[in-house]
């Protein structure tokens, strides 16, 4: 099941450069929340705070609270946290030295699961959820690099799902893909929200409109507006949101 997120006064820096300024936000469980905004406004930084990947960048730090079902993630072990909060990146990044199968179960093996049958079952389940099973079940032993870009991205989604997270962060997961592959990923996201809380960064507003229950607009490291997607697109409260939506800047 998905878990909810509550962000309180989140600030983030790269060195002296503050990229997130006092973000407060509620992300409900089992919904798709889209993060939109112009390039460089801090979208990636924001989602990378949620699984504390931000902390792994040298010189980067964050302050504030992020509550996962009420528990502050900064009180948790980041390694544990990342098993609960999965992430899919902009560019597909399967492990090239591993087969398709090994890619999917990589996280489970890291968790210490060794039972062949359980691994096998988990791999099939994740690949089915990622809508990739039918395309790869006959060649699980092939390198992950033998897949097309869209398939590689679904492989990465399957890899993230295999460890059974409750939140899935996606940072522009379709921006490197062609329209058909993008559509498949979008369908998949709508499927997945039954079981996961999804936070997706996109610079494609149509995409946000198609898949997100709520949308948050970021600008210069600030959260300008967050509300139901239809409201953000049809009837934004903020002038700056409207300007961005209507393409007056960004």
């Amino acid at each position, binding site marked *: 099941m998905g878990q909810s997120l509550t962000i309180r006064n989140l600030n983030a820096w790269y060195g002296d450069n503050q990229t997130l300024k006092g973000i407060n936000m509620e992300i409900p469980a089992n919904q798709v929340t889209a993060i939109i905004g112009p390039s460089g406004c801090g979208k990636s930084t924001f989602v990378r705070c949620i699984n504390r990947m931000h902390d792994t960048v040298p010189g980067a730090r964050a302050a504030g609270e992020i509550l996962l079902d009420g528990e502050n993630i900064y009180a948790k072990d980041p390694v544990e946290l990342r098993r609960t909060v999965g992430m899919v990146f902009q560019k597909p990044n399967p492990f090239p030295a591993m087969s398709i199968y090994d890619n999917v179960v*990589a*996280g489970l093996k890291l968790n210490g699961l060794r039972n062949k049958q359980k691994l096998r079952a988990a791999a099939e389940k994740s690949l089915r959820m990622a809508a990739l099973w039918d395309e790869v079940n006959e060649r699980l032993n092939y390198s992950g690099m033998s897949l097309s870009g869209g398939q590689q991205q679904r492989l990465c989604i399957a890899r993230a799902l295999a460890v059974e997270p409750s939140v899935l962060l996606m940072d522009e997961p379709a921006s490197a893909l062609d329209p058909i592959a993008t559509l498949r990923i979008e369908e998949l996201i709508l499927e997945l929200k039954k079981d996961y809380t999804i936070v997706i960064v996109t610079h494609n507003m149509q995409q946000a409109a198609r898949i997100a229950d709520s949308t948050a607009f970021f600008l210069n490291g600030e959260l300008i507006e967050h509300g139901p997607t239809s409201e953000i697109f049809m009837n934004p409260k903020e002038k700056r949101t409207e300007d961005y939506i209507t393409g007056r800047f960004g």
Partner: protein
Amino acid sequence: MKQNRASAGDTILRLLTFLMAVGVVGLIIWVGWEMFSSAKESINAFGWSFVTNRVWDPVKQNFGALPFIYGTIVTSLIALVVAGPIGLGVAIFLNEMAPGKVRSLISFLVELLAAIPSVVYGLWGIFVLAPLLRDYVEPWLEKWFGFLPLFQGSAVGLGMLSGGLILAIMILPTIAAISREVMAAVPDSQREAALALGATKWEMVRVAVLAYAKSGILGGVMLGLGRALGETMAVTMVIGNRPDILPSLFAPAYSMAAVIANEFTEATYNLYLSSLVEIGLILFGITLVLNAFARLLVWSVARGPKGGHLV
């Protein structure tokens, strides 16, 4: 017209690069052939027994290369066993763990090791390493591992162990630098992929970095091995220079490169000289085969898995 000129240029370039490639192959064959003809006398006299004969006696005109092959292989293996893990560890530390300042200082020092002339290593081996081994390390090894034939016999300090350890220090920079280079080439997206799955730092290194870079690391180790096989000066100064085959690593031995360098000027008759050249030919052959094998390995790994369970 333009089309023609471009394709003429292409043809010339292709021809030229082809000739250069052929030239390299030709050079190898030429070197091999010249050595072969100089070694002919010894080859005719001893045949295959040259590589199985453990006696090297210029007075009786009886020449066998086995002691030198043995000494070379054993010292090189010691060097690999010691320098391989350490070099890899240094590379991992420098690339994945160390903060910026420490990183540049240590990598500077490690690379400095490669700049030290081998004769200086040899002197250091005689005056520092050998006494250290004789007085502390070898007695300790004998005390705890003396049940193995490898660690029996009198602790002299000069022998295969010191030869191997000197070589280890000498090939360490090669292994560390190349491993580090290939690790630095691993994209950060790979590291992030592992971390985002809940990998610890070490797991990230293993799953994302080492797995990705392993063919290159293997290449670095092989290059180190190549250097160890051919190294002459430092080894001859500490290995003891006795053409014996003894199981103990403490025992003196001889290496192929060392015997050629030491006895070439003393080789007073043709068969003696020819035997030395044949040793050179064998060394040449071994390094060639080793490199070919290493390349094959690197290729097969670089092609990616069809089924391996790598985690």
